[in-house]
């Protein structure tokens, strides 16, 4: 005695002229017009709508990082000042050589591991810690909230460089130190984003309902608040990956991070920075690499957000998800959601 059961998508009725569409297309004209044959197959490979693409690329990046020693044609530290700054395409050096005459390709490949570590690990730590702190502040009592927020303010107003110097003197140089320093730098901002989201919903009826049903603070935070907070936090923190790689390079100027001559993208970016105008094709490579990696993680963050956030928005209060499903209804906000004209014509 309940509603209709799900039925498999049926073929259009003969009377209707709606033509078969890929299963995800919706009423919007633009979409149907765009769905060419061949596209669905790609989608099948990459997951519907290419949703899996960012994940595939991220995995690829990690694989490259892992296999770099096998892929790299040269020792990344080997080079000669007599062969420095060769342009891409130089014999034996498809991507040219850097200011020390070292093979760019090898360095970019071998730089992947520390760079990804510096880019991802601090962001991951900051995301976890920041979300935990932000949600705690958002849900906690007045005192908890103020204490946490003010402490985070202190951390945020604390100059990042000083923090880095301090960390450097406390810990040995190396990727681990970079991760610690960057995590501390990034956490307060993530926490603030998480806090805003948590505060926005803290008096929501569904949280009251969850509290009434006896959920303790932990269950409340993890099972009720996190799914709502995570999407925006993910968008924010995935944006930080590229920044973290660049910041890591800034830290290596202070003696934190990987020691020369080890390859690391941020450090390479920095080393080649002055050559950007004289040897653009060399100097741009680490920049483009960082850019590409950051784009991959940003899109991954976006994809994750859609996963977690589900298909539609989270209440009227903002910041829900634009789900996969929007795809089909993409045109709806300005095109109306009426039956597609082509379906009736």
């Amino acid at each position: 005695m309940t509603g209709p059961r799900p039925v498999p998508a049926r073929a259009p009725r003969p009377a209707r002229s709606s033509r078969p569409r890929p299963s995800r297309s919706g009423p919007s004209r633009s979409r149907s017009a765009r769905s060419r044959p061949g596209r669905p197959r790609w989608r099948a490979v990459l997951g519907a709508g290419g949703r899996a693409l960012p994940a595939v690329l991220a995995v690829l990046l990690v694989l490259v990082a892992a296999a770099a020693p096998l892929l790299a044609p040269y020792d990344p530290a080997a080079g000669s000042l007599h062969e420095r700054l060769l342009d891409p395409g130089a014999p034996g050096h498809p991507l040219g050589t850097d200011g020390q005459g070292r093979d760019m390709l090898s360095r970019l490949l071998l730089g992947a591991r520390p760079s990804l570590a510096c880019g991802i690990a601090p962001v991951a730590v900051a995301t976890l810690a920041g979300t935990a702190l932000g949600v705690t502040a958002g849900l906690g009592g007045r005192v908890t909230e103020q204490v946490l927020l003010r402490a985070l303010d202190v951390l945020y107003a604390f100059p990042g460089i000083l923090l880095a110097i301090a960390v450097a003197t406390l810990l040995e140089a190396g990727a681990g130190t970079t991760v610690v320093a960057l995590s501390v730098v990034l956490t307060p901002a993530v926490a603030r984003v998480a806090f805003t989201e948590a505060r926005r919903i803290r008096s929501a009826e569904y949280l009251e309902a969850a509290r009434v049903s006896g959920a303790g603070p932990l269950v409340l935070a993890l099972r009720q608040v996190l799914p709502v907070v995570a999407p925006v936090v993910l968008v924010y923190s995935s944006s930080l990956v590229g920044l973290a790689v660049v910041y890591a390079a800034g830290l290596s100027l202070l003696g934190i991070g990987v020691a020369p001559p080890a390859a690391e993208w941020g450090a390479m970016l920095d080393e080649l920075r002055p050559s950007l105008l004289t040897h653009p094709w060399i100097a741009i490579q680490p920049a483009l690499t960082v850019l590409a990696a950051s784009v991959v993680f940003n899109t991954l963050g976006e994809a994750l957000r859609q996963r977690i956030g589900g298909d539609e928005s989270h209440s009227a209060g903002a910041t829900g998800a634009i789900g996969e499903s929007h795809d089909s209804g993409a045109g709806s906000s300005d095109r109306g959601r009426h039956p597609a004209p082509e379906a009736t014509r």
Partner: protein
Amino acid sequence: MSAEGPVGARAAGAGVGTGRESGRDPGRKPDSDPGREPDSDPGTTTGGAPLLAVERAVKRYPGGQLALDGVSLRIAAGGATGLVGESGSGKSTLARLVLGLLAPDAGTVRFAGHDPYRLRGRAARAVRARLQFVPQNPRGSLNPALRAGEAVALALRVHGTPRPERAERVAALFRQVGLEPELARRRPRELSGGQLQRVAIARALATGPDLVVCDEPTSALDRGAQARVVDLLTELRERTGLAYLFISHDLAVVRHLAEHVLVLRNGRVVEEGPAAALWDAPADPYTRALLAAATGRTAPAAPTAAPP
């Protein structure tokens, strides 16, 4: 002004009628004298504390709106009290007080001896599990990020149901309220109003509570679904001694489910008594008007003419 009955042990054979013995005449207007000492009623001495006791609760919202003005209410274990009244008269506010979502400005709220607003920590969870809620606005009360089944499963988890059993229990609860278990996989936005309402009911029943505060639990249900839910609630009450505070505009449902009824208007209880008595001989003009409107009889007095 009490509706006290035998002490609220669930096993105490609490069945239909346990909460019935009212200490006062049917149809009496109890709040005509708000300053009266409620505990002076000799009835309280007979059987210890009731499951729920609200004493002269007052609630004024920050904007200045006086939502409750000295309301008292008692529900014994296994009792079923109906709360009817004008829209905006404070019914939901009272429900929120009972649940500890709001603190009264004056007066007290006690559930099984605890102040639900001040409950903290581990004990709180145990008590909370015994006091459940079906909110008026089911869509708002379900987390948009969670699937319907997850919402219910979370309540089960709180209740201590081991993980492997949860899916089974969720499906069973869904069936009990008349929902296809498949719907558990949908998110709130993908469910109809009535479906959501039943998810909320399933969630409230999941923890095996002693008292469920139902704020318009069947307003979005068709007659069939409504009957099913009401029958379920009745059966649970008979079988397990579950008590209800039942808020509804649907007087037929209230009549069917509640033994004792309070009529609220402008934050005051204008009339209170056993359901049958109230229906048969409503004393307050507002009650009369309400009943008349609901049953199609002509109102003896215009509602607006009723005393404020």
